[in-house]
């Protein structure tokens, strides 16, 4: 075997060792990272059912879902009308009220300000909706951002009406 061939074979050997070693280190590191992801007991709590039969018009309840507050508001006729009357051009994050509330009487959204994660206060602010005390974001009766530093509307979680008295969130 010539010296050149020898060198070639040696290079291949070393490259293969390095590459295989790197693959192994990667595979060994993954469990150490993945262990911090939500575990199976947390994932199992992904949906929750809420009884809404006792909520009066104009009132709202807050429930905990995946560790976050979820606002369930039964809106009055006036509030619905107010939400629907807004022109899309006036919105920072344009969304129709119909797209946010499947059943216009019920508004279900995650009660976390899209700015930096504080919980907004209900029936407050310049738009009769919600107001975040941390940095002064104003949301309207559809939970849409109207004024302040928050970039987007309050998030709508996945939910469905199991029957007329029960909402399943998640």
């Amino acid at each position, binding site marked *: 075997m010539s010296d050149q061939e020898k060198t070639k074979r*040696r290079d291949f*050997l*070393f490259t*293969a*060792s390095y590459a*295989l*070693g790197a693959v*192994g280190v990667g*595979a060994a590191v993954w469990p150490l990272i993945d262990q911090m992801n939500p575990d*199976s*007991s947390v994932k*199992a*709590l992904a949906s929750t059912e809420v009884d809404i039969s006792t909520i009066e018009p104009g009132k709202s309840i807050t429930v905990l879902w995946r560790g976050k507050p979820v606002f369930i508001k039964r809106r009055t006729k006036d509030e619905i009308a107010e939400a629907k009357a807004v022109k899309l051009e006036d919105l920072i994050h344009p969304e129709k009220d119909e797209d946010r509330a499947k059943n216009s009487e019920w508004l279900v959204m995650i009660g976390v300000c899209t700015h930096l994660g504080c919980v907004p206060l209900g029936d407050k602010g310049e738009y009769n909706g919600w107001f975040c005390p941390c940095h002064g974001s104003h949301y309207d009766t559809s939970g849409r951002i109207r004024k302040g530093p928050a970039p987007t509307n309050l998030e709508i979680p996945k939910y469905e009406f199991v029957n007329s008295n029960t909402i399943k969130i998640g």
Partner: protein
Amino acid sequence: MKFFFKTICIFFVLIAFNIQKVEAEENTKVLKVEWSFKGLFGKFDRASLQRGYQVYAEVCASCHSMKHLSYRNLAEKGGPEFSKDQAKAIASNFELTDGPNSDGEMFTRPAKLSDKFVEPYQNIEEAKASNGGAYPPDMSVLVKARSGGANYIYSVLVGYDDPPTDVTLDDGVYYNTYMIGNKIMMPNPLTEGLVEYNDGTKATEEQMAKDVTTFLTWAAEPHLEARHKIGFKAIIYLIILSILAYFSMKRLWSRIEPKV
């Protein structure tokens, strides 16, 4: 170098020998069953796990808790693998106390997938009081908590017998060939035909014992299948990489005396 290899070989042989010895010692004390979950590629028998759950639920669960398991586990991969709906239906058979509700009161509701197995007794004291002073142990990790493991559990389940003439038993104590000390407070739990299997398997005492032991083994080690699968890959990988490392080393040391 040679010495090192020899030592390693001897070491591995010693380990293998020891494991065999341990197993052999078990043999003299307990019955040995050919479990499907033993060995390099051991997997659970899915049907047996499902039947085993049935035996647990209909026979054991009235006294033995399994507090570390959740109903969702029954539908998880590597376990009995009931469908999600089956597992939900199983869970909804159990009532548990939840709360407080908005009036500040506790209420009962059917169990959900995310709930832990409902325990038969409120606390250890109640369990003892209901069982003549003996606490029926929690079964979540029972197989790992007994030397002999699955074979031991199986042996005890089929090991009930009449006491030899020189053994006298108190009331509420039974004789068992394989139980440590031969005395057991649990009456023989399994009799032929006690449960009716959906899949038509004949519910003999041995069959039920085997099924429920399989189920308990899974309960104690729910990730056993993943462990065997990953383990095999890991060891193959390590062997290949050590061969590569060996030749890399030889190459690097080729001009140096003494050789490695």
